[in-house]
């Protein structure tokens, strides 16, 4: 019994140690920041010490992978007990839901701050950073996402090919370099149901299709059907077998393993493709603007990540100082050459950027930025966007599975269009009520 008691005593003592909360230190303001890992946080970390020293603000920076970051933010915000001051998020995906629930602080009165130089962000698509239903800016855009075409320069040289400019040339190139017998495939684009939507959107618009027209789903239109059929033919015939679960990570994996000759995907892939630690073909990567379809080239231009202030923050001034730093020119110059181009116009003349980027990459960006398109978002503009993506993605997956020849494709797309209409109705934004 004595032994048991002494064990209990030790346990209790340990417990009191363990359960005691942490102690407070330092007098200056302290803020808590939730951010995503990868290049953007590498950029923040690079200059964070400098920022803390100059501003006297202590930053508790917490980094998470993308899905975990969203889960953490939503859980904390929903309980109303969050101690977050500043957070990163994807406005395309979450601006609607987050602002509806009052999780986004309007930034209007801050934007005049001369240190920010808001005019420098004129290339940022205003719709994507405005709080829906208001004129208020809800976040500072950090970097854009556009679609580019990556290709293997050695393979193209071997066959004497140029990067394709339109879809006919694209199919020609695919036919020439596709070599399944030797486990080499012409092209990879996303095939995973949910991940594919934005990468498929330039194809959709290139055939004159679109997600939504006049407040109704346009997915059953002739242009949308042609586009889906083409996407299915392209990937069904010239992409590797695993394409149906391929999201962004498989794109780099396929290219870096030398399995495919071309990848059409987001600019963010670039850093991994040219990293000699990740790829044996790091010095054989060519970049070009995407080929044009019958109705032109339609890369999206998304605000892929942005930084926002939590309205419950007890230290908004310090929070704003940090936001200015994250959206500032140092971090911008750090991430831009890594495939995450800042929206700051001044970044392109920053010598840190000029010296770090290859001419074809700069040219590809210039060509892409010159495009005018109404596919700015690369997504259906509606409240239930993720659900709609899944619904339409299902039909695209079927098209890939059947190499674009599936007899049920037309029917599936009509069904999907009807379901999307239902979603529009469910949120009271169908037809005339469409307000995006």
């Amino acid at each position, binding site marked *: 019994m004595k032994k048991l008691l002494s064990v209990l005593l030790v346990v209790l003592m340990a417990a009191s140690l363990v359960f005691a909360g942490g102690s407070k230190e330092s007098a200056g303001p302290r803020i808590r920041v939730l951010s995503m890992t*990868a290049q953007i946080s590498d950029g923040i970390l690079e200059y964070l010490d400098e920022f803390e020293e100059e501003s006297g603000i202590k930053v508790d920076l*917490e*980094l*998470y992978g993308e899905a975990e970051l969203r889960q953490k933010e939503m859980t904390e915000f929903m*309980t109303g007990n969050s101690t977050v001051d500043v957070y990163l998020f994807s406005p395309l995906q979450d601006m609607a839901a987050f602002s509806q629930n009052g999780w986004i602080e309007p930034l209007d009165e801050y934007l005049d701050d001369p240190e920010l130089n808001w005019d420098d962000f004129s290339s940022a698509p205003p719709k994507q950073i405005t709080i829906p239903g208001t004129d208020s800016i809800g976040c500072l855009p950090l970097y854009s996402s556009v679609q580019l075409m990556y290709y293997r320069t050695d393979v193209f040289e071997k066959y004497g090919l140029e990067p394709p400019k339109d879809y006919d040339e694209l199919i020609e190139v695919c036919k020439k370099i596709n070599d399944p017998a030797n486990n080499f495939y012409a092209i990879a684009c996303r095939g995973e149901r949910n991940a594919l939507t934005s990468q498929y959107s330039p194809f959709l618009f290139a055939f004159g299709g679109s997600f939504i027209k006049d407040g109704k789903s346009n997915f059953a239109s002739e242009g949308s059907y042609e586009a889906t059929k083409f996407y299915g033919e392209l990937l069904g015939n010239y992409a590797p077998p695993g394409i149906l679960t391929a999201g962004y990570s498989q794109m780099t994996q396929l290219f870096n*393993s030398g399995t495919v000759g071309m990848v059409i995907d987001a600019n*963010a892939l670039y*850093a991994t493709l040219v990293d000699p630690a*990740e790829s044996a073909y790091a010095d054989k990567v060519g970049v070009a603007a995407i080929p044009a379809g019958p109705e032109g080239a339609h890369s999206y231009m998304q605000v892929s990540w942005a930084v926002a202030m939590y309205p419950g923050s007890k230290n908004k001034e310090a929070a704003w100082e940090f936001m200015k730093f994250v959206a500032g020119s140092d971090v911008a110059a750090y991430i831009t050459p890594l495939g995450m181009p800042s929206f700051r116009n001044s970044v392109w003349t920053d010598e840190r950027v000029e010296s770090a980027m290859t001419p074809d990459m700069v040219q590809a960006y210039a060509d892409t930025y010159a495009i005018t398109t109404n596919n700015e978002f690369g997504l259906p503009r509606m409240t239930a966007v993720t659900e709609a993506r899944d619904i339409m993605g299902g039909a695209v997956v079927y098209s890939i599975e059947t190499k674009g020849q599936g007899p049920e494709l037309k029917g599936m797309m009509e069904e999907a269009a009807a379901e999307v209409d239902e979603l529009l109705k469910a949120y009271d934004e169908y037809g005339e009520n469409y307000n995006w």
Partner: protein
Amino acid sequence: MEAYKAKKTIGKIIFYIAVAAICLVIIFPLYFVFISSFKNMADVYVMPPKLIGFKPVFAHYEYIFKTQNYGTYIVNSAVVGIFSTLFALVLGLPAAYAINRNGMKNSLLGILVARLLPPMSFLLPFYFIFSELGMVDTYGALILSHMVLSVPLIVWLMEGFIAGIPRELDEAATIDGCTRQRCFGSIILPMCKSGMATSTILSFLGSWNNFQFALILSGPRTRTLPVTLQYFVSGADIRWGRMLAATIVVIIPAIVVTLLLQKNIVSGMTAGAVKG
């Protein structure tokens, strides 16, 4: 006699071959990850894989040790794992004994219910409760939440093991004037030490690898190892090399701690039994 010996030798050989084959299936993927973490990813995709004699690359490890504070995370994971298991044993062992000896099926189910609930149902309520108590980003919140999973595990397994110990032993002891608690401590526990070692290890590893609770309830001060694995899977790309290196870094302390646990628990309990 000769034939019998030969048969026995052949049996032994077959036995060792079988064991070796099984170990190979288990170890090969881990070995593959281990060597891959020292390769450029480009070489990882080369088939057949080069299993030995390549030039090791340390870049992945350099990066992850630069960005991650593994020393702290290992301490955090160990503190949470050890204390949640310890407390769960203190609560669970007596409960398992009493439940078994008195056939308290409803209490058993009551304790087990937490294990049946999908972990997602806990996330929002737990964050709410622990933030109201100001306990987010403390060891306390993590330990309590992990105990929700390990107490049922321990009670459930130990109830089964204790069932295998004849009741006559208890009865004999109590007739001799031994109290129930003494009987439990000096007779029952020493008799199910392999069961205890097993549930301790399972409970510890369950906590060590818990991801969902750790994600929601930990913070910069208490971040545990599984949460750091996600560091290399971002929206933009997966850095496989770094991910694999991190996998190795996370598993090594688990192996060490498990070995220590196994050794100390078994020897500790044997010593206790001899003395008691």
